[in-house]
């Protein structure tokens, strides 16, 4: 089996320049300067945090799951992983992680994919894709085409050598977090997942917390 490696951070919440709770089912969009550090906290545990990244300099250049995983030859993200865009541009690096493994293949739930996966009557249920679209619609630089396969922080999507893929109970727990250091100007888009039809949120969606620290040398310092 895989070994989860927890890497803790020395950063103190009191020094953060930004500190916000994203309620279950809510969205969040935020711009990071290079060198700034984003911490995402799984406050109550077993919560999937669906996240996309874009180059602030070229908003059409979205996070690329396949380029990211092929570059590191591993489908899971953890400390040391570099998240790259479709152009190959390096966007962020994971610099601390007390969960140990994050999903790159499960994507975001949508009303339409819920009808496929569960039943046609799930169409009205709140979902991540709706949150993503509502947040992107609030910014002139984005279009629907910018929706791309996303990262699911704290979510467990095991793949077997035989090619089976499942959604399993979380590998995370209360207070676990992941920290990402921006390597370029980056827009972060989060949907705090409202899915109730599978164990990705332990059938009980809960809040996520986001904190931002400035770079050591100050804002914008790399």
């Amino acid at each position, binding site marked *: *089996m*895989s*070994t989860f490696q927890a890497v803790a951070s020395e950063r103190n919440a009191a020094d953060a320049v930004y500190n916000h709770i994203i309620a279950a089912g809510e969205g969040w969009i935020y711009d990071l300067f290079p060198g700034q550090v984003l911490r995402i906290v799984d406050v109550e545990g077993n919560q999937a945090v669906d996240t996309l990244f874009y180059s602030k300099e070229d908003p*059409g*250049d*979205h996070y*690329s*799951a*396949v*380029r990211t*995983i*092929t570059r590191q*030859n*591993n*489908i*899971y993200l953890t400390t040391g992983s570099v998240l790259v865009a*479709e*152009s*190959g541009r390096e966007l962020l690096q994971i610099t601390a992680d007390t969960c140990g*493994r994050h999903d790159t*293949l*499960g*994507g*975001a739930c*949508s*009303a*339409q*994919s819920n*009808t*496929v*996966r569960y*039943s*046609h009557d799930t169409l009205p249920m709140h979902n991540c*894709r709706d949150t993503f679209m509502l947040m992107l619609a609030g910014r002139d630089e984005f*279009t*629907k*085409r*910018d*929706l*791309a*396969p*996303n990262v699911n922080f704290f979510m467990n*999507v*095991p*793949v*077997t*050598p035989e*090619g*089976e*893929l*499942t*959604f399993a109970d979380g590998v995370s727990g209360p207070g676990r977090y992941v920290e990402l250091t921006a390597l370029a100007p980056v827009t972060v888009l989060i949907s705090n997942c409202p899915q109730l039809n599978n164990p990705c949120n332990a059938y009980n969606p809960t809040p996520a917390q986001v904190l931002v620290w400035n770079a050591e040398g100050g804002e914008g310092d790399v």
Partner: protein
Amino acid sequence: MTASFSITMGPGGKWSAYIGKGKSVTLTAAGDSANVSALLYHAAYPSERYNMPDSLKAQHTAFYTAGHVLMSDQGRVLASIIEDTAGWHDPLGGYTTRKGTDGKYGPTSYQQERNAWLRSGEENLTVELYRHNLTPRDLSAPVNFFSKVVCELDGTMRYVPQPTDGRSVTLRTEMDVLLVVSNTPHPLNPSAVYPGAAVEIRITDAAPMTEDDLCVNHCGENRRAFENTWNAYALMKGAN
């Protein structure tokens, strides 16, 4: 059956076309280590496109073979895989880049090698997308037909050679689609030699779907995605 159309992509080749629903599209490899990176879009409304995560999670799979379908981000079936003699088609490995191609096989250029220069998936797909007024913004995870990538339990991705010479895979279009393909190596193929398998694409009218259809009946998820697709076409069809 109407007359069939066929075209052969040499190593490094690329192709794209609008293909109506109900067509049978067979890719046949003439050689081992074949890899075709493929993207699919709704022909009329290309913001609806093949979605790797939606397809994988609905079918609980990390690879494709006969019985699987390629779903769009709207919960519909763009194409289904009705026959397959290769066994495994990879949805995870992405496409080769110019930088990666130069790094692995040595730099080549049109100036030096003329048309024998080594093409990349990134450039091939970009050009074929741009031909249809799409841009790198529309690039996403492709299906890599003929390639096998196994994920170990720790997540490590491992390219596993499988015989492809003479093997084929047949898609049936379930919607009017834009198909974009690039006959370029799999990014995780460790060989230092640029693969040289030509791939033929043959398109005919598909046989009518029957009650026991392999792809519709593969799982409840597939049936519901087909129902979404049929409903969408029923809504688009005029009453008179």
